């Protein structure tokens, strides 16, 4: 059901596209003027698309263009900008903090992948096999996503209190563990952030997997069962192949998302202790806003542009390399 519904919009789009084609072909014979264009619905199409174009253009595309331009400038946004060529890029690339930030960001992405990728999948598989109160589990899984990120972080900051009477330390103390320093420990800080980030984001992914799982026809499982497949075999040979397309997309989205991690290190640790959670986005932020006198917007945008370029290349490579197995 769910799958069928998700298929509908593309079908509609296709219908629109094909309906449009003969119309244009017919017009071509007659030298279509603006009037014909209007009569054929060109104007109303434009009017309908306009809000989208304006909003996207103004809030997305224009800022992107500006950022690229700014990465070659020095400006404090008050006085006229001056062109500095590749200066900003050179400055950023020689920043001794950059390798640290790259390493930390990669570490975060890796941990998030190891912890954050399988957990939602596991939850979704379990939830899809539950027969009663499905809605309740969905709500429970999705609840953390509804909590505003800032609130969630402040809440967890409280949990992570490093003293023996902190929430987590108290709980772990019952089984004789701890107390741990959590955010005040250079080695525990990053895993602590990943734990919270996973908790906060898992719900969204679970819903996506659930939707895909519901689309797997029950007959396939029945057939597998008849063939003598156990639970594990069913998951591995039936469920996983059906989820392949979705997994493929969530994987690259997760990478792109985690590489741009910001809220957690910003609110939990400010990059500390001792740069243990300094990430690339935090660096960009600090370049731009870390100093009260107007930051180095050139360096900030230069690093942003480089990050965007790397992620774009990574995405293209990923799609190329996996082109064969993404087709289900």
């Amino acid at each position, binding site marked *: 059901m769910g799958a069928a519904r998700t298929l509908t919009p593309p079908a509609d789009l296709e219908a629109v596209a094909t309906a449009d084609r003969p119309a244009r072909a017919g017009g071509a014979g007659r030298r279509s003027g603006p009037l014909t264009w209007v009569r054929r619905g060109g104007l109303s199409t434009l009017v309908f698309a306009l809000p989208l174009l304006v909003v996207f253009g103004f809030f997305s595309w224009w800022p992107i263009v500006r950022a690229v331009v700014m990465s070659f400038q020095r400006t404090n946004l008050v006085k006229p900008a001056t062109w500095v060529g590749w200066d900003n890029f050179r400055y950023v690339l020689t920043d001794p903090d950059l390798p640290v930030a790259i390493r930390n960001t990669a570490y975060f992405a890796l941990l998030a992948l190891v912890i954050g990728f399988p957990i939602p999948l596991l939850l979704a598989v379990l939830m899809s096999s539950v027969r009663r109160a499905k809605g309740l589990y969905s709500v429970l899984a999705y609840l953390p996503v509804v909590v505003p990120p800032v609130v969630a972080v402040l809440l967890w900051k409280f949990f992570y*209190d490093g*003293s023996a009477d902190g929430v987590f330390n108290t709980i772990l103390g019952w089984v004789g563990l701890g107390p741990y*320093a959590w955010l*005040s420990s250079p080695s525990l800080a990053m895993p602590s952030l990943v734990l919270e980030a996973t908790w906060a984001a898992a719900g969204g992914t679970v819903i996506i997997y659930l939707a895909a799982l519901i689309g797997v026809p029950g007959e396939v499982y029945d057939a597998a069962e008849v063939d003598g497949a156990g639970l594990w075999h069913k998951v591995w040979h039936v469920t996983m192949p059906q989820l392949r397309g979705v997994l493929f997309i969530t994987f690259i989205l997760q990478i792109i998302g985690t590489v741009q991690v910001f809220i957690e290190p910003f609110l939990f640790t400010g990059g*500390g202790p*001792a740069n243990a959670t300094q990430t690339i986005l935090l660096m960009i932020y600090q370049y*731009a806003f870390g100093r*009260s006198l107007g930051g180095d917007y050139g360096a900030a945008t230069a690093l942003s542009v480089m990050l965007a370029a790397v992620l774009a290349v990574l995405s293209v490579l990923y799609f190329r390399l996996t082109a064969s197995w993404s087709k289900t």
Partner: protein
Amino acid sequence: MKSPRIMKACTLVAAIGLGTTLAACSSAATDAGSAPANAAAGQDASSPAGTTPPTTDAASTDSSADASTESSTEGAGDGAGSSPAASSPAASNPNVLDPNTKVTLNVVGLLPGSKPDAIKALADEVAQFQKENPNITVKTHDYEWKATTFAADLAGGTLPTVFEIPFTDGKTLIANEQIADMQPYLDQLAYAKEFNKNVLQYGQGPNGDVYAIPAKSVYGVGLHYNRELFTQAGLDPDKPPTSWDEVRAAAKAIAGKTGQAGFAQMSQNGTGGWQLTVDTYARGGRVETNDGDKATATVNNDQTKAALQFLHDLRWTDNSMGANFNYDWGSINQAFAAGKVGMYTSGQDVYTSLVQTNNIDPKSYGLTMIPLQGADSGVLGGGTMAAVTATASSDEKAAAIKWIDFHYLRKYTDQTAAVALAKIQLASKQPVGTPELPIFSEQQYETYKSWIAPLVNVPLDQMTGFTDKILDATLVNEPAVATQDVYAALEPVVQAVLTNKDANIDALLNDANSKAQRAIDAASR
């Protein structure tokens, strides 16, 4: 997080990020730095500083540009020669607000999250002001100076017309033309020429005009301590520590007997580097030296190492610093007011916000001098200036000076105003009489204190360890060039020492020094 005061501290630092004007800034600041601020006055004869450049009635509506041009020609060399116009602002003077012109003035108000009493006190003050100036409508906006939000507000043009900045930000904001030349307006105030020149110089442009006006929270860093925890630990709250060894012993006693942190240190959002600089100065070191307009990072000095070793000993040998090592200005105040911290260092006037936002029990509060040891040791000092956005209209600027006079300054020179303001504060149970350093002369400040003496409700007798000595101490300014970057370079070092037992202080400081130097060089790139 907090307030503008924080800023003072941390920020003072700030200033220099962009460096442009640093030359003037750094040399002036350095000179001033080595002299006690209160001794201050015009030690630097060549500085046009305090001299009041003339106001002219010629200034057009865009008075900022005009006025500054004029004074730069006239005012620079000839300090004393303030023009006659200055002394008699005629009604036709466009810099004086026509009482019939209606003006709405946006100004900074309290810290976000202030208690209802504090909000009421400010509202009363605004009402009083509007009664005096019926044509001006004042709108207050919650404001907490933070390096991060300030930069965004500044870039986005969303600051209130009158806002507060730390001493160290003035020169760069002036060079970037981000704040208005207030000289022609300041001249309308009777006490315009009586500022402590060492304090005034932070807000003066290259032409000697005053752009940012010293307004409040002129401070030296002090050692704040919890008297109740002292008592519980068997220490005498009337004999606070006077050396770092005594601080260490007291911290150990408090941690051992009460389970709370004996001593806590800020280490986040720029405050870590700021406080390490405080600790360095207190031992006689400096984190940056200035030679003409060339600044050199010197953070890998013996005194900074000693300060870090001190923290390391408290943290790892004595375990007397508790379990939280993520404090910044606001959160350490909160923890202190909640009785979780025995001692910490911060600006001397932090008491006001401990009351306004953290509900501290006054009986538990104690303030003493930060221990000064070694040659050249001194107390890091700073303060807060009021500035007006560069885009303000001349009516707004004229209204702004009235508010700056009324809200910040008049009380120091006018007995009636001092008493009236103190009464408003007192009625709402706001702190009256929190010790500051003099914005005008030292005698003037003493006189001011005598006016409000009967109304003082802060426990001054619990602060004598500080107030008896601060005026004789050497005040040292924050590093003049790339201040915030120098702090940012030091911060991970503080965090490493507090969170990693095996932190290699020498290596960390060498690393920080090259980062700081890189930032200093970049400030002038």
